[in-house]
């Protein structure tokens, strides 16, 4: 549980930094998107720490290209 708390504290710190720094520059749009991306990162960390089943993006790529790359690899490995 300690790494989870540490990771969440770190992301909260980064979030606060972005919030304050960009607030000074009036970059409201940038700040909003940065916080959104940071939220995804925080959720990812939390999901990993809690052992939730997070889908692997490479599996998605492999599923899309499976009809093409399987025969291709078989042909290449045939020698």
């Amino acid at each position, binding site marked *: 549980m300690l790494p989870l708390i540490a990771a969440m504290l770190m992301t909260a710190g980064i979030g606060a930094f972005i919030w304050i720094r960009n607030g000074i*520059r009036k970059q409201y749009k940038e700040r909003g998107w940065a916080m959104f991306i940071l939220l995804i*990162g925080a959720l990812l960390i939390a999901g*990993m720490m809690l052992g939730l089943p997070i889908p692997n993006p490479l599996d998605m790529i492999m599923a899309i290209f499976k009809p093409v790359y399987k025969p291709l690899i078989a042909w*290449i490995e045939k020698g």
Partner: protein
Amino acid sequence: MGKTAGLNNSLITSGQAAKILFMFAMGSSTLILPTAVAAIAKQDSWLSFLIAGPINYFVLMIYLALNDRFPRMSFTQYAQKLIGVWAGKALSLTYIFFYLILSALVLRNISDFLGLSVLPQTPGWFINSTFMIVVGYGVFLGIETIARTGEILFTWGLIIIFVVLVLLSNQFNFHNFEPILYQGLMSPIKGSYPIIGFPIAEFVFFTSILPLITKQGKPKLRKDLKLVIVCLTFASTVMTVFLIGVMGVSEVSRSPFSVYDMAKYINIEEIVVRVEILVAIVWIGTVFMKLVLCVYALTVTTAQVLGLNTYRPLVMPYSVIIVPLSIFIYRNVAHTKEVAAGVWTLYSSVQGILFPLILLFIAVLTGKRDSEYGIFPSPENTDGKNAKDSPPAEQAEARKAESEAEQSERTEPEQSGEGQTEQEQSPPKPAGGQKSGQQSAASSDSQQSPRDQSDGSPPSDMGDQSASQTGQSEE
């Protein structure tokens, strides 16, 4: 940091661009790639790298042809011009995903390498996090800093690789190459399949860098890139020749980090031994460059898709995503092999070759060209106050030319003393400031400022300052 936080439009020379491209390629091909190629082409795998050279040239020519038509735009921006705003943004989203996955894979490679060879007791997440902090800071500082770092690492990398290869020459065994072309020419052709995937198709990141090359550097760019392709092909081929000559095919195809393992063979009379850490240093440098460029392309593409004025606020949030992604992206060794030697080449070829080729065909068929400035809008231009002003890149080049002319006038009479090199990089200063000790104290700022002034930053910097003032007054 605060002073430069909105600056995006730094410019680099064609030589710097060529060097970072070389470093990017070496990040993959030096340590991991020979294993995948040797597994397919066996003792003829050095021929696969020679075959990949022309493919490399062809891919870079696609990017250059697109850049000739849209010299001041990145891929995201001319995609929107060519296939429409929404289709262009949808296409760019696939690139964001691609760069994100690529960054996670590269970070995983470095943590695997360090975990297996140098820091076996250190947990992977710690290596990833600390490495990512440095990478994030490099991206935050901008392309000019990245390019300068690349120049330093390029020289040291080449020297160390040369020294390592010279020291290995006494271990070389020509019998390891026999029989040559036993399975015909088809075997090395098949062996070039993983090379197309990484690094050749991954060069698509270069489309984010091309609009940032100075106008003076554009005519030399084609020549520099040709030179880089020749150097890259030569370096990869020589490296593979040494790998097979020293270690033999079976060991190369088994070793996860073959070049590092090859350096362990160095033994000059029991005096010069254990120099493999030099290879580790070079590889960490090249992978650092590769990761920095991937994250830079990722954040810039995202910022351009979302229409932001700067990419910088996105650097840290993306770093927070990349670190956990790199930890769970590979499940095990079999999964790694299936991805690296199988699907990745196909996926990166679609992103790095097919899509740019389609865009080039559309550009040729429709005859579209656009020299409009489109890297990032400066805050002033977005406000519409100085819309008639020349774009920041042109201002940058004009200021650069002015400062160079002034410097050349100054340097002739003042060519005594070691401080001259710093003087050349800094803008004309007031006479009083040159001799005082304040100069050294403020050297970091003064080195930052001339580039800021010369890269089109003043408008955005001023815009930032005015924005901050108004923001503070509003608060």
